[in-house]
């Protein structure tokens, strides 16, 4: 299958100019061209294939939004190449953006002062969406995203969750084959998050839309994405299946025990005590060292147990481990 996005050795440096304040400050900004460079995205290559739903994750400032801005043609790459279908995003901007959709969770792409309805109507003209298609799409999205309650509210008065739903609808009215979602669940409550997730899944499954998604919520990833790319300091650390990553790096499991009486030294081979509070003890162990049932068996032979629970290490923690310990750097 031919890749829909091809990024090759893509880099973006931001130039940070010294910011002069006060009288004539602006004039000096114009002529004082000394700058420092921020290597926001550094030599990144990847392929994305039609129909994929990919999670693009990494800590704050990793370079996710910068990558997306290059892929959507908002920023000109400092070096490297990017091609989406037959387009070079920043060069063919006007023709290219007809075929994509984008939602930036941090800010709306709708008209601040216009009611949602008028905003969407305006998009119909901007994208030259045929009337029947527009109506079909709008009707379907309105139902799934439950837009009706605020169709006539100006965008500036919408709650975050409402705004995100309006933005999602707006990004999809023109039937883009490819959409970019930069933190579409940021700041949403659990219900709203769930609704947005379901919508993303629907679009990907039912319409075959290719989706590149960034998020800080690992639950988004766990629920939605088969493949993930992890970026940090502008470099891709991992590109592959999410399950593989968890299996490989998330081997450690946790056993929480409540003993029936207090033991001075409830140690056991092949498991590590990571927390201890009276009769409550938490062990950590590796799947490959010992199975849960064996561990519990050994414990119950030596001690009297009132209650216990086995958990896989939270995905959240696995990802944090990877970020913090730069596990993927080897």
């Amino acid at each position, binding site marked *: 299958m031919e890749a829909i996005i091809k990024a090759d050795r893509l880099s973006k440096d931001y130039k940070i100019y010294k910011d002069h304040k006060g009288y004539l400050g602006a004039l000096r900004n114009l002529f004082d061209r000394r700058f420092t460079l921020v290597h926001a995205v550094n030599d990144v290559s990847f392929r994305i294939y039609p129909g994929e739903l990919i999670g693009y994750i990494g800590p704050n400032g990793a370079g996710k939004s910068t990558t997306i801005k290059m892929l959507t*043609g908002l*920023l000109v790459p400092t070096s490297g190449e990017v091609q989406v279908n037959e387009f070079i995003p920043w060069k063919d901007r006007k023709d290219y953006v007809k075929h994509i959709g984008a939602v930036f969770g941090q800010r709306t792409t709708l008209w601040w002062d216009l009611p949602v309805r008028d905003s969407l109507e305006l998009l119909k003209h*901007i994208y030259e969406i045929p009337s029947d298609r527009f109506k079909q799409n709008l009707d379907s999205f309105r139902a799934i995203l439950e837009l009706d309650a605020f169709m006539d509210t100006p965008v500036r008065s919408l709650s975050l969750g409402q705004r995100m739903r309006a933005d999602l609808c707006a990004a999809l009215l023109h039937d883009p084959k490819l959409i970019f979602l930069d933190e579409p669940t940021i700041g949403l409550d659990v219900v709203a998050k769930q609704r947005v997730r379901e919508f993303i899944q629907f679009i990907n499954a039912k319409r075959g839309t290719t989706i590149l998604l960034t998020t800080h919520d690992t639950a988004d990833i766990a629920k939605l994405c088969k493949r993930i790319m992890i970026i940090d300091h502008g470099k891709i650390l991992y590109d592959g299946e999410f399950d593989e990553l968890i299996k490989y790096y998330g081997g450690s499991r946790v056993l929480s025990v409540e003993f029936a009486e207090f033991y001075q030294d409830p140690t056991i081979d092949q498991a590590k005590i990571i927390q201890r509070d009276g009769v409550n003890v938490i062990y950590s162990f590796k799947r490959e060292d010992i199975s849960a049932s064996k561990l519990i068996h050994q414990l119950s032979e030596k001690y009297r147990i009132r209650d216990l629970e086995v958990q896989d290490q939270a995905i959240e923690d696995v990802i944090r481990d990877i970020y913090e310990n730069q596990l993927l750097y080897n």
Partner: protein
Amino acid sequence: MRRNLSLLFRLLRIQIRSQLQYPASFVMEVLSQAMILGFFFVAFAVTLSQFGDIGGWTLGEVALLWGLAEFSFGMMDMIFSGFDYDAFGPLVIKGTFDQLLLRPVNITMQVLGSRFVLRRLGKIIEGLIIFIIGLSLANVDWTLGRILYIPVLIFCQVLFFGSLFIFGATTTFWTKERLEILNVFTYGGSEIMSYPMHIFPRAIRLLFSFVVPAIFLSYFPMVYILDKPNPLNMPVFTSFLAPFIAISMFWLSLKFWRFGIKNYQSTGS
């Protein structure tokens, strides 16, 4: 292009509709604006009446210059509202310019459509009235060429001021702040264009001939229309350079604008 224009008009219609929400107060505002601005001319006229003329130009003749400059600047300020720092600065600083780049439409059209300050009608009306006063007071030997040159001049002045606005907006990509000095050329330029320029000191004249060639858009053309002696001893063709200068400046400003867009860095988050 047709599509761009139709979108532009659609955007403008939205702007105008919301600004006309309270028609009575809108009309009051426009009229009082026109009056406030008009008083500057009244004060000038009263002062001038003590001297009879200014640099050999009568009140009616100056009124033609003045009215034209006010009218054109008002038109420009209305059409190019989107390029005004008040509107454009925040786009760049907050990064909402991103949203324009995401749309499959010409960026310039979108900026033009992003704001349309209808209130500028005050200045336009004021300019028009002063121009009409000029027509009634001045003795002009109207030929077809002279009559036709008036609308051409208005068009050129609008383009000229518009280029300055586009130029100013483009600098925001780097400065992020209002470049106050540009007001010297825009607002200062329109002020200077209201007077027969030979009355100004040489340095000012040179500034507005070579740095910002305002002199070719009002003074020299008006020398032709009014058939005035030319104390600056300029060749006759300088009266007809207005279209050439306005169009080149506009072209240059659009080039600079494109360059600026390429250098747009967006903002974090």
